[in-house]
């Protein structure tokens, strides 16, 4: 079932990424981690559907945020990151998914691992936790190209400063801040072992990113002693123009 969403706010996250807020009058509410399908239809009837994770916490305002990265050859993302304006309407289907979700009733330690734009559903979990006043210990390992490619940077920094039970480790793949202890590179078993909860805590792990990233991160988590049935994954990639 497709619902009409009206763009009510736009915010740039980086040079190539933008957050779009939709008002959806008949939105039934969502759970952190879920996604939504967006359908764009051209004047000639051609339509394209893409999936985007919801970035915002569940709320009663019937609003949802998505953050979209502009892909050079994208069919949909250039429109969403450059052309769409407040007042425009899109067709949305969702919320979708009941597996890759975090609910405030969960009190166990949570390990989040994001690769690039895989931060989006994890940000919804972080925001949901804050909005619910949950004290579940959260850790985020965020792999990103370079410091200026970090999404929600100020908000994440503010949350870690205010909340001792929320911590972030950044892993930069191309360029680091000055005097950063770790040279740029992909996450590895050593980093995952050091930056994540000890497996003895029985944390639930949520991993989101490109497929190759998710496969690596999940294997490092199991190598660190985490049980595969405590690891939930969501993959996106060049096959899907996803996120």
């Amino acid at each position, binding site marked *: 079932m497709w619902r009409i969403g009206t763009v009510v706010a736009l915010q740039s996250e980086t040079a190539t990424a933008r957050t779009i807020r939709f008002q959806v009058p008949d939105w039934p509410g969502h759970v952190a981690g879920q996604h939504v399908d967006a359908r764009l239809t051209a004047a000639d009837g051609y339509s394209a559907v893409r999936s985007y994770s919801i970035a915002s916490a569940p709320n009663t305002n019937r609003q949802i945020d998505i953050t979209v990265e502009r892909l050079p050859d994208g069919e949909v993302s250039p429109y969403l990151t450059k052309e769409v304006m407040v007042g425009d309407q899109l067709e949305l*289907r969702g919320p*979708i998914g009941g597996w890759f979700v975090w609910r405030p009733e969960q009190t166990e330690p949570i390990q989040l691992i994001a690769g690039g734009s895989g931060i989006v559903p994890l940000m919804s979990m972080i925001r949901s936790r804050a909005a619910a006043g949950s004290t579940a210990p959260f850790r985020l390992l965020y792999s990103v190209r370079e410091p200026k490619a970090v999404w929600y940077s100020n908000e994440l920094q503010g949350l870690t400063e205010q909340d001792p039970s929320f911590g972030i480790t950044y892993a930069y793949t191309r360029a680091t801040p000055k005097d950063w202890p770790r040279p740029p590179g992909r996450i590895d078993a050593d980093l995952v072992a050091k930056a994540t909860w000890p497996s003895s805590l029985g944390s639930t792990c949520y991993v989101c990113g490109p497929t190759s990233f998710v496969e690596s991160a999940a294997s490092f988590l199991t190598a660190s002693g985490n049980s595969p049935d405590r690891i939930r994954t969501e993959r996106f990639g060049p096959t899907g123009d*996803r996120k």
Partner: protein
Amino acid sequence: MSSDTYNYLDGNAAAGELSRVFAMDVTAAQGRCANCGAIRRFAEAHLYIRGPGVVARCPECQHVLLRLASFGESVFLDVKGLTYLRLDAT
């Protein structure tokens, strides 16, 4: 580790289209592979979307679990690769 090695997504990516068919959430549903017997969440299936439809494969043995294709107002669904699919009300 070429990108071709990882040319799949996962069952989450088919959930929107499958929501046309199933009233209950399919990503958390548990399915049993008809080939190897592995019981996994549908979200964990490897999903190939480059073809005219989508193909979900078992993450353990790569056997085809499900095929889905939409043509106009019709949906073709082949689930013979699953011996069962257990869906739970959330």
